[in-house]
């Protein structure tokens, strides 16, 4: 069975993560003063499906955990519990914990048991410290039983001699296809089973509906049986019966135990929740430390999910468009082949028409295929309300986060690689940008700071802006800091733009003290590197006291690149257009040969190293080896500037990036390959790689 189930694991994980996201955003959107029942319902439904799914796949730890959350949410939903900020925070923490658990299971790594136990305890405390605001009805039996960690101290668990189970199926149990006798048989397999049937509920023969189950049982099964095994047997009927179980201990000395049994004994059987054994609240501190042991026993059931290939969910309408397009293409194709069979010269016009139609369809098809890879940027943006919520409560700031243009679509790869840099930027704005409420009031600004995340298309680019109305960047402070750290010369004259760029230097941080949120001075450096790796660039605009805007410009897709083809002998290479600064013929008197360090040339007061393409790529057919006869292309990549010595520039064109690694391996200095108009292959150059190669 495990093999059959494994193929659905990936889907389960994807759905669960989506569910968690839904829960998170639902929780964040809760207006504590005026709660919309539908909001709570949404959160509850998400939790419920995760519980159901994890139960089905045997991830007991997850379903147990979700169950506690669900109970809390259920009480909120029924209006029996007030929704408080602490409760919401606990739930948010649990969402995180659940996500960690699912990720661990997905990767096949260890679940952090102490973390789980901690969150479970927090949930239980939340459940226990509230008084239900209305009497509980029979339809919601879970709510009335006070919850606790439900963890028995390990030494007691070991002494379990058996279980007493009160099993009262609801009338419709048999209709759901469950058969009590089968479950009893399984129980009997675990240990010695004694059953007592309660016939009280059975009506007179005349009133009896043979499809209903009027019996209830008291089962006594002896043996050292883990609770999980019992749970497993009743897993499918959990919602269709009232179930209570109570362990039988070998010795009965501990006061906690007697309280446990006493607690159960006074409760009507119907009110006790499956799986949960009520115990005194006092025992929870003890149970916390024991939780890992208990859980580790269950661990074996949790099977490592195979690392699934990445997948995307595509809007059905996109697929429909694609199918339409293919249909059109087929029609055009059959028209053309018909034309070809009986071709006469007077049909030339028809042929031309057909061909142009074919061209149009092909192009449209290409566009819609590309479109499939596009995801709305909300995939990245959606995590920020949570971040803002956490950080603002941690720092005591009042912050409003605005998201604009979440539906802007970007290539999937870009979306994935964009999220880390954006987190850095937003964190910076929240932490350094927005001031404390009193400072803001003193500066005549509204108490609540605003951080805006905006995405929009411009030309072939997508622009993402992070704007805050905080204190802005202090140019003088930046400059002083840079001089202090020895990053710039004290005499250096910097433009505003250059000054702001300083914050992208490695090791630069203006925060007076480090916080665990940001300020270590590694962030911005990494941000810029990541953005550049995506083929984009990043800019800062800032006004002291009014706030700053950081904008990221990215190509829409990583699959297509604006390229400049260059010739070196018989070879054609492609340079990313964005990396080229200028190209020039160099005069003899500008050249400088540094002994042992290669050649440099003087460009507006700056010496730039020359990389001879024919040399590092070993092209014997190069037209010239004299620097003055060829062309120098000044390029920049990752802050490195150099001149590439090539034969000639050929032309600009958009190229589709193909992987060289897919069938071969990585070549230093080459980032990929493409196919030119004539069908031949051309290699795309990677500037930092070329520099490394030249330095070897």
């Amino acid at each position, binding site marked *: 069975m495990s093999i059959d189930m494994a193929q659905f694991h990936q889907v389960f994980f994807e759905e669960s993560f989506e569910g968690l996201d839904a829960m998170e955003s639902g929780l964040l959107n809760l207006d504590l003063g005026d709660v919309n029942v539908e909001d709570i319902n949404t959160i509850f439904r998400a939790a419920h499906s995760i519980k159901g799914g994890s139960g089905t796949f045997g991830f007991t730890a997850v379903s147990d955990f979700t169950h506690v959350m669900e109970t809390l949410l259920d009480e909120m939903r029924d209006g029996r519990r007030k929704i408080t900020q602490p409760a919401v925070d606990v739930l948010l923490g649990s969402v995180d914990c659940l996500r960690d658990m699912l990720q661990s299971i997905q990767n096949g790594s260890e679940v952090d048991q102490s973390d789980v136990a901690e969150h479970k305890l927090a949930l239980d405390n939340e459940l226990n410290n509230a008084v239900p605001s209305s009497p509980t009805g029979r339809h919601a039996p879970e709510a009335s039983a006070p919850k606790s960690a439900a963890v028995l101290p390990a030494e007691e668990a070991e002494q379990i001699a058996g279980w007493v189970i009160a099993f009262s199926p609801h009338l419709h149990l048999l209709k759901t296809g469950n058969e009590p006798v089968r479950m009893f048989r399984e129980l009997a397999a675990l240990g010695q089973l004694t059953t007592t049937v309660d016939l009280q509920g059975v009506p007179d023969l005349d009133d009896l509906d043979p499809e209903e189950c009027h019996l209830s049982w008291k089962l006594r099964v002896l043996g050292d049986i883990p609770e999980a095994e019992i749970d497993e047997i009743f897993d499918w009927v959990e919602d269709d019966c009232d179930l209570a179980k109570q362990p039988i201990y070998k010795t009965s000395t501990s006061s906690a135990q007697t309280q446990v049994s006493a607690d159960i004994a006074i409760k009507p059987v119907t009110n006790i929740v499956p799986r949960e054994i009520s115990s005194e609240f006092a025992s929870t501190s003890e149970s916390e430390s024991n939780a890992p042991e208990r859980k580790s026993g269950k661990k074996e059931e949790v099977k490592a999910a195979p690392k699934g290939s990445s997948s995307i969910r595509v809007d059905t309408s996109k697929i429909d468009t694609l199918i339409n397009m293919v249909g059109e293409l087929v029609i055009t194709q059959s028209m053309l082949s018909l034309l070809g069979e009986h071709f006469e010269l007077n049909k030339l016009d028809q042929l031309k028409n057909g061909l142009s139609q074919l061209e149009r369809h092909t192009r449209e098809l290409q566009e819609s295929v590309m479109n499939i890879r596009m995801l709305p940027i909300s995939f990245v943006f959606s995590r920020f309300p949570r971040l803002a919520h956490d950080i603002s409560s941690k720092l005591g700031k009042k912050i409003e986060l605005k998201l604009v243009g979440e539906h802007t679509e970007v290539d999937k790869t870009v979306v994935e690689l964009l999220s880390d840099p954006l987190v850095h930027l937003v964190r910076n704005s929240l932490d350094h940008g927005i001031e404390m409420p009193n400072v803001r009031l003193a500066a005549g600004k509204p108490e609540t700071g605003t951080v805006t995340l905006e995405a929009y298309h411009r030309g072939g680019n997508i622009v993402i802006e992070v704007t805050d109305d905080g204190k802005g960047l202090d140019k003088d402070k930046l400059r002083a800091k840079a001089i202090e750290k020895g990053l710039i010369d004290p005499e250096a004259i910097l433009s505003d733009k250059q000054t702001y760029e300083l914050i992208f230097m490695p090791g630069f941080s203006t925060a007076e003290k480090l916080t665990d949120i940001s300020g270590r001075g590694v962030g911005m450096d990494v941000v810029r590197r990541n953005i550049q790796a995506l083929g984009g660039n990043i800019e800062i605009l800032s006004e002291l006291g009014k706030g700053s805007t950081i904008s990221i410009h990215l190509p829409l897709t990583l699959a297509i690149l604006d390229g400049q083809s260059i010739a070196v002998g018989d070879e054609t290479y492609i340079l990313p257009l964005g990396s080229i600064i200028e190209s020039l013929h160099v005069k003899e008197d500008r050249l400088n040969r540094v002994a042992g360090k290669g050649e440099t040339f003087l460009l507006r007061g700056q010496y730039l190293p020359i990389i001879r393409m024919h040399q590092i790529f070993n092209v014997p057919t190069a037209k010239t080896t004299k620097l003055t006869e060829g062309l120098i292309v000044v390029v920049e990549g990752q802050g490195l500037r150099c001149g590439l010595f090539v034969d000639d520039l050929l032309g600009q064109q958009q190229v589709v990036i193909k992987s*060289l690694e897919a*069938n*071969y391996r990585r*070549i230093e*200095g080459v980032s990929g*390959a493409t*196919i030119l108009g004539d*069908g031949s292959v051309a290699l795309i150059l990677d500037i930092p790689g070329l520099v490394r*190669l030249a330095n070897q």
Partner: protein
Amino acid sequence: MTADLESNQHVEQFLTFELEGEAYGIEILKVQEIRGWEPIRKIPNTPDFVKGALNLRGSIVPIVDLRERFQMQKVEYTPVTVVIVMSVNTASGTSVMGIVADAVSDVLDIKLSDIKEAPNLGSRINTQYMRGMFVGKKNMVMLLDVDKLLNPEEFVDIAGLAAIAEGK
């Protein structure tokens, strides 16, 4: 026992081709297509026997010259020179690669039991790339283990070894 017998009786098809007049064979299931030689793009800083990359309907396929790989004499490519495109299992999955051979000859059905262990042929052809030998009616066919022969990681190693040797 029976399983052994069965597997020995099992027949596999091999595509044979010529290099310097000798016959070599590769599993036909690995072969994707056979095409004529056409000029290809050189890949810089790779061993000489990697002639370059070819555009095969949109994917970039590296081409290895087997003569050079086996340190045989280089020859001019002629109209009968062929490129055999194969899918190769590598550590990271499957890659598509091509080999240049003098000519394609035949497809042979070979019983696995008829495959003899490769004799030591000296240093020129490393037997680790051989799957075995098959003695046919007309000639002897050397059966190659394509996965080992066309492992991109090994190309690096060979180049690296050469560099070390030069360094000494």
